[in-house]
């Protein structure tokens, strides 16, 4: 279907269902219960899941296929965001032109950076991209303040009146899709459960499904084959008389445009841009997302993005008071002990948990979270079929990481 083979069709069907049903899936616990803390089904976080998913999918197109590790990808996201917000401020409050603008600006910037950086490979390439991104960050924070807003960034203000809008004087414009406010939601209450369906989230979700579909098509295309050939042995490719540069540059720009798309969507969902978005830690984050999920796999980067954003937004909010509430049913001594043990890992200690999870995943699941999923899947499959073939398959797979 749509030019995909059966497996890929299945994959995209699963992703589509997950995106549509996310408000249910991410809110498994009833409101008011102690576990409601772990609910992630509110608009902002759902939007972040899919937006960073897009960002990571795009990054993985470059890294997973060609093996070129860009350490400055956040710059494209940031530049795309600035392009998008200026479009909202000056041209139209409709998010479509601003998202397109984000993609274009990021694409042009990626073309320039890629043209220079791709003259080198390996670590030299990584450092070149890092250098460009750090320069973008430093300049956006300081001397480019008139364009970027510097430290305080850019927001839509009451003084902005875009060309194609009829705002009352003093009214602050809101990003919308043909009049449909990005922030509007409707809610369903089912008993103790509450599910929120947000316009912005579904827009971003649809875009992510399209981006995911495009990524599959690219991966499966002859172009994708060529990119994997570059990864496996660029020298041999050169000997056959093929110049790899145009291919790598093309995928670099596509990858940058994915980042710009994510940046544009971020602005559409939440009309604000700050320069920290381009700092090297942000570039590092997308690298980590991709590796954590499983570099080179299709769904891995999305899982990695979701994992890191979940930790950042959910674990960091668990404070001592919440722990006390959770463990209140325990006898006093044990309650204190449990709180003492758990507290360093939550709330302000959320980074510690994140670091430990990174190490655990890479040590025990060398293929990333995707491999974790595969292992679980294999266990079930084995129980179902018990066929020798599956056993052998599993054994072979298990041996691979230990080579």
């Amino acid at each position: 279907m749509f030019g995909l083979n059966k497996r890929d069709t299945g994959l995209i069907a699963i992703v589509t269902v997950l995106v549509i049903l996310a408000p249910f899936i991410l809110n498994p616990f009833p409101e008011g219960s102690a576990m409601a803390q772990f609910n992630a089904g509110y608009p902002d976080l759902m939007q972040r899941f899919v937006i960073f998913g897009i960002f990571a999918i795009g990054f993985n197109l470059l890294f997973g296929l060609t093996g070129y590790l860009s350490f400055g990808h956040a710059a494209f996201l940031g530049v795309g965001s600035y392009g998008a917000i200026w479009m909202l401020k000056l041209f139209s409050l409709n998010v479509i032109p601003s998202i397109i603008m984000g993609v274009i600006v990021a694409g042009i910037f990626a073309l320039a950076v890629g043209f220079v950086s791709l003259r080198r490979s390996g670590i030299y390439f990584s450092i070149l991209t890092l250098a460009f991104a750090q320069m973008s960050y430093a300049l956006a924070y300081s001397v480019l303040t008139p364009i970027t807003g510097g430290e305080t960034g850019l927001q839509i203000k009451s003084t902005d009146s875009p060309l194609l809008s009829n705002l009352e004087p003093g009214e602050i414009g809101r990003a919308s899709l043909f009049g449909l406010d990005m922030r509007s939601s409707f809610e369903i209450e089912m008993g103790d459960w509450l599910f929120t369906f947000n316009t912005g989230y579904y827009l971003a979700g649809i875009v992510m499904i399209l981006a995911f579909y495009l990524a599959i098509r690219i991966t499966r295309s002859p172009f994708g084959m060529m990119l994997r050939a570059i990864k496996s042995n660029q020298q041999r490719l050169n000997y056959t008389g093929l110049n790899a540069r145009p291919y790598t540059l093309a995928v670099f720009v596509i990858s940058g445009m994915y980042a710009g798309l994510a940046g544009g969507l971020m602005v559409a969902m939440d009309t604000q841009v700050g320069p920290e978005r381009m700092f090297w830690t942000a570039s590092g984050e997308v690298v980590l997302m991709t590796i954590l999920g499983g570099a080179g796999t299709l769904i891995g980067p999305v899982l990695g993005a979701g994992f890191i954003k979940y930790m950042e937004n959910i674990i960091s909010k668990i404070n001592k008071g919440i722990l006390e509430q959770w463990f209140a049913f325990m006898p006093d001594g044990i309650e204190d002990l449990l709180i003492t043990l758990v507290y360093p890992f939550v709330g302000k200690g959320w980074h510690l948990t994140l670091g430990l999870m990174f190490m655990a995943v890479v040590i025990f699941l060398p293929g990333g979270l995707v491999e974790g999923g595969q292992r679980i899947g294999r266990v079930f499959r084995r129980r179902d079929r018990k066929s020798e073939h599956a056993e052998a398959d599993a054994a072979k797979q298990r041996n691979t990481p230990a080579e």
Partner: protein
Amino acid sequence: MSSSKLTRRGLIKTSAIAAGAGLALPTYLRADGHSGFTNAPTGDTVTLGFNVPQSGPYAEEGADELRAYELAVEHLNGGGDGGMMNTFSSKALQGNGIMGKKVEYVTGDTQTKSDAARASAKSMIEKDGAVMITGGSSSGVAVAVQALCQEAGVIFMAGLTHSNDTTGKDKKANGFRHFFNSYMSGAALAPILSANYGNDRKAYHLTADYNWGYTTEEAVRTSTEALGWETVAAVKTPLTQTDFSSYIAPVLQSGADVLVLNHYGGNMVNSLTNAVQFGLRDKQVNGKNFEIIVPLYSRLMAKGAGANVKGIFGSTNWHWSLQDEGSKAFVKSFGTKYGFPPSQAAHTCYVQALLYADAVERGGSFNPCAVGEALKDFQFDGMGNGPTLYRGEDHQCFKDVLVVKGKENPESEFDLLEIVEVTPAAQVTYDASIFGGDLGECNPGA
């Protein structure tokens, strides 16, 4: 932890957690016919969102802010000794929560990044049903979160933010700042500098290369040049700089006899340490002792610079050694609970929480517009800074500003600064229009 068994139990009661308490209310921007504003509290509790840096360079200040908020919640709900509620000139607060609703809270980590701060604030509004967001330790974050609260229709009570922009070009009707700003620092410092160092000085500025740095440099420059000082040079330094030697080394060659460090946080600690290392303060230039000035002091950061702060002038919003009744009451209840005195960040956050609660009581509603109306041109006293005005035009507090000096013989690890002068509010007041910006209309959301 075990030593404060009683308090902690009290805390459970008072601050039991809001994830649940937001109940059926994550109504971010839902047209909510009956209430008319975002996250209107139903039931017998109200949820506040404390959004402070818990990781990154300002984590220590964030932790102190959080302590202050917890104390404020305890006092609002009638626990503890009541702290500043006893000295506050408005007597609307009864110690029974806010408008009879028990105060609960949620916390989040801003990471001192505007994206993370907004994500955290949004989760408080969307998921937890917070009706007010407060906290933060930098102007970038304050401006970003303030804009968010304006869009979402909740009140933002700024924490530590010193840039003129917060209540200047980026002011918003739903945002309020108790902390002072760059302009006030400059205005308060100038007379003291004149009295101590004379009117014939050559100043060399090192300025953090971002918005706050620019406004601070400008404020100090304008007010010192008005005294007759000459500005020899103003050099911008990158935010990410850690070693300032290459900026400090040329200072003596320039013929300047005063170095102004428009730096905050880690930048300030490092540039001051480097400057003292270079022995600048032992030098004589133009027949005068070389001097260093740090326009914005923070005791927590001064601690990082250790002995290097001795004798160096700067300004601060509040200091625990103040002897008015409000400050004494606050230091007593904070010190008793945590074992050390509060920082200026803790003070401003505590006061902001109380001011919000009081405005809700007086306005008779949690509606942001009612709160804004109650805070508008509100005059109060007994909160540690003398008589204070919450100006209606820009939602900035006007109060006395402290000029402080690094103490030569500290008696304890907290005793780092001594108050040199309490500059009266009238001297630091400015016209609301000079920084531009547009307050706009209050937005109740919904």
